[in-house]
């Protein structure tokens, strides 16, 4: 049935596509190790993924191949990378991962970009036994998810930890007398934004922080002026926005326009992007945001340099490094096992400590409890100021004006 209708379709003049598809799959290199990757090159998540996910994959493959490939027991093997675009669509993502697993028969797959995509793909990784070292996935259900999917690893933290990081910063600043108790909080009315705001209300209240303004705005709205005006009118000591990339930029712009005078100004996702610092320059000095790095270690310095050289782009000051770390872990585990044995590599990840650009990483119950939660733009660099079990946090500074 399928075959017949397909043939008819071809007969109607679409044969070229099919023919080219056939030709393009016949070229393959011998003696390589095949690594697959599916991430959003188009669609709403593409903006973040082309900063954080894509360049690190490119960089890692280039580095490994430049040194002759992955060292396995039967000799060194070059990486053959097979990438697909999931178009920020979970259905497309699932199909693409299945294609990697059953058609391309890749040896390993680099974990998806985005919480939803990691969870949507987890059953397939589990079915075929691929280790899945998730980076851009933040959840409060890590325990339940790792119990369900024995090859799924989390590295970037939990929703609650992120909120607690912000709370700690605000409490520290309050206790030092820098700010008062009043917090204006807004969130994007979409999955992660709602989740963070929901977690923040009781956590802030318990710490004695008073939420004087609590509003949401729709995803993708270009008009953020009303929420910023409202926040300003509430006369807060601190401003917290659980925001996504486009609105992180939009809210900052509005804060400049409204001249929102707070000593602590926090926006969530994408504050750590080089483009954010690039766009606003000194105006966003001492702005707080999600994530962070310690850019002063020799390993991180080398990483930023190599990233720029090999991909032509600047790494972000948060999950870029984590993404690269996840690839280092995969690399060390494959070489540690010395073979393309998925089960053994998964077990190796569970049992060993990995030397990475962010220091030693070890998984406990498939969770690496070592990550940055809050960072701050300090003189052109976004430094981590709050972390869970990572050393090198800079001390937080008070913001003074938008100059």
């Amino acid at each position, binding site marked *: 049935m399928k075959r017949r209708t*397909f043939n008819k379709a071809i007969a109607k003049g679409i044969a070229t*596509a099919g023919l080219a598809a056939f030709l393009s799959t016949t070229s393959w290199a011998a003696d390589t190790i095949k690594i697959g990757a599916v991430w959003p090159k188009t669609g709403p998540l593409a903006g973040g993924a082309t900063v954080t996910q894509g360049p690190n994959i490119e960089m890692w493959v280039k580095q490994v191949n430049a040194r002759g490939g992955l060292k396995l027991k039967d000799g060194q093997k070059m990486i053959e990378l097979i990438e697909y675009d999931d178009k920020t669509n979970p259905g497309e993502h699932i*199909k693409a991962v299945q294609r990697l697993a059953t058609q391309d028969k890749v040896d390993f797959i680099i974990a998806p970009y985005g919480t939803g995509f990691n969870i949507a793909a987890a059953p397939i990784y589990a079915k075929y036994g691929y280790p899945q070292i998730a980076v851009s996935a933040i959840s409060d259900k890590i325990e*339940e998810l790792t119990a369900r999917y024995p090859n799924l690893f989390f590295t970037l933290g939990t929703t609650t930890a992120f909120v607690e990081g912000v709370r700690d910063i605000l409490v520290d600043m309050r206790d030092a007398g820098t700010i008062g108790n009043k917090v204006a909080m807004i969130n994007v009315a979409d999955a992660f934004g709602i989740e963070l705001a929901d977690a923040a209300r009781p956590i802030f209240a318990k710490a004695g922080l008073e939420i004087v303004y609590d509003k*949401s705005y729709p995803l993708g709205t270009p008009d953020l002026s009303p929420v910023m005006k409202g926040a300003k009118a509430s006369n807060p000591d601190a401003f917290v926005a659980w925001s996504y990339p486009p609105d992180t930029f939009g809210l900052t712009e509005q804060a400049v326009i409204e001249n929102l005078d707070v000593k602590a100004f926090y926006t969530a996702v994408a504050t750590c992007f080089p483009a954010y610092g690039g766009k606003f320059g000194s105006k966003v000095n001492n702005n707080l945001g999600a994530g962070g790095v310690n850019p002063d270690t020799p390993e991180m310095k080398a990483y930023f340099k190599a990233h720029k050289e090999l991909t032509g782009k600047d790494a972000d000051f948060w999950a870029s490094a984590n993404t690269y770390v996840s690839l280092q872990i995969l690399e060390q585990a494959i070489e540690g096992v010395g073979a393309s044995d998925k089960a053994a590599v998964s077990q190796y990840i569970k049992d060993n400590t990995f030397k990475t650009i962010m220091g030693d990483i070890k998984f406990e119950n498939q969770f690496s409890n070592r990550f940055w939660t809050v960072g701050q733009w300090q003189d052109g660099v976004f430094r981590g100021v709050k972390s869970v079990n990572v050393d090198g946090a800079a001390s937080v500074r008070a913001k003074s004006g938008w100059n």
Partner: protein
Amino acid sequence: MKQVSWSGIVLAIILFALAAIVPLVANGYHLSVAVTAIMYVALATSWALFSGPTHYISLASGAFFGVGGYLVATGMSDYDQSFWLMAAIAPVVAAILATLIGLATLRLSGVYFVIFTLGLAEMVRNLVSWIQNNFLGSRGLYVLTDFTEAHIYWMLLAVCVVIYIFGWWLSHSRLGFALRIIGNDEAVAKHVGINTALSKVVLFMTTGFFAALVGAIIAPRYSYIEPNQVFSPELSFLVVIMALIGGTNRLWGPLVGVIPFTIIWEIISSNFSNFSTLFLGLAFLLIVYVIPNGFVGLLEKWGRRLRA
């Protein structure tokens, strides 16, 4: 109106049996493609039940599909309800929503109706996000079940069977006859005493019901629901294109559109992923210029020529 032939029934049963064994013989990737295809068969066929005879092009599939997925996710994740309960509630809610929307908008005709339905998915997405944000709260919408793709495939296949039986009944009913008259000339339909508003609303409700049911069944496949993904305008366009490519004058028309479209879409996304939107555009042009009545119309034209 001719009676159904026995050969037709036998053919339908054979096709159904073949479709039912797909998960037993296909590998993971082919099954994934099959799940996507059968999802669109269900959506496009139920879409054509309304839009085929009446010529009201509805871009609301995404809105109802989203309601289905979203209700299942909220119910399971935030209220600890079972999948089955939520999958039963979701289409009913969508049907009620469709009725309200239908009553308000089916007086619109032509392009006004199309534009309204296009905006609908956005409106519903914002509405549910707003309600969730302000009244319900959420800790992430997880839909964790033990369903495999094979289970989801079979559930969708069952939905397809129901849609086909309903569609067959419809085409032999007074309601179906009324819809065809409305499609040909609404003024005439009114004059001969057809309650045009009621007929249109009933059918619009049906498409809403089935789209939400499909969305509900797909939710476990996505595992984690984000409103901006389930309320996707692209889905609405794909449903329309696939149905029109197949042809909407026959119940099995959309099926003839969905299967080649899914396969070609797959080849393009895996090999030239930058060109899938271009392909969508070409498919549109193809429909408008070459096959206004779909593959089915084309086949029937050739059939008539052969006989002549």
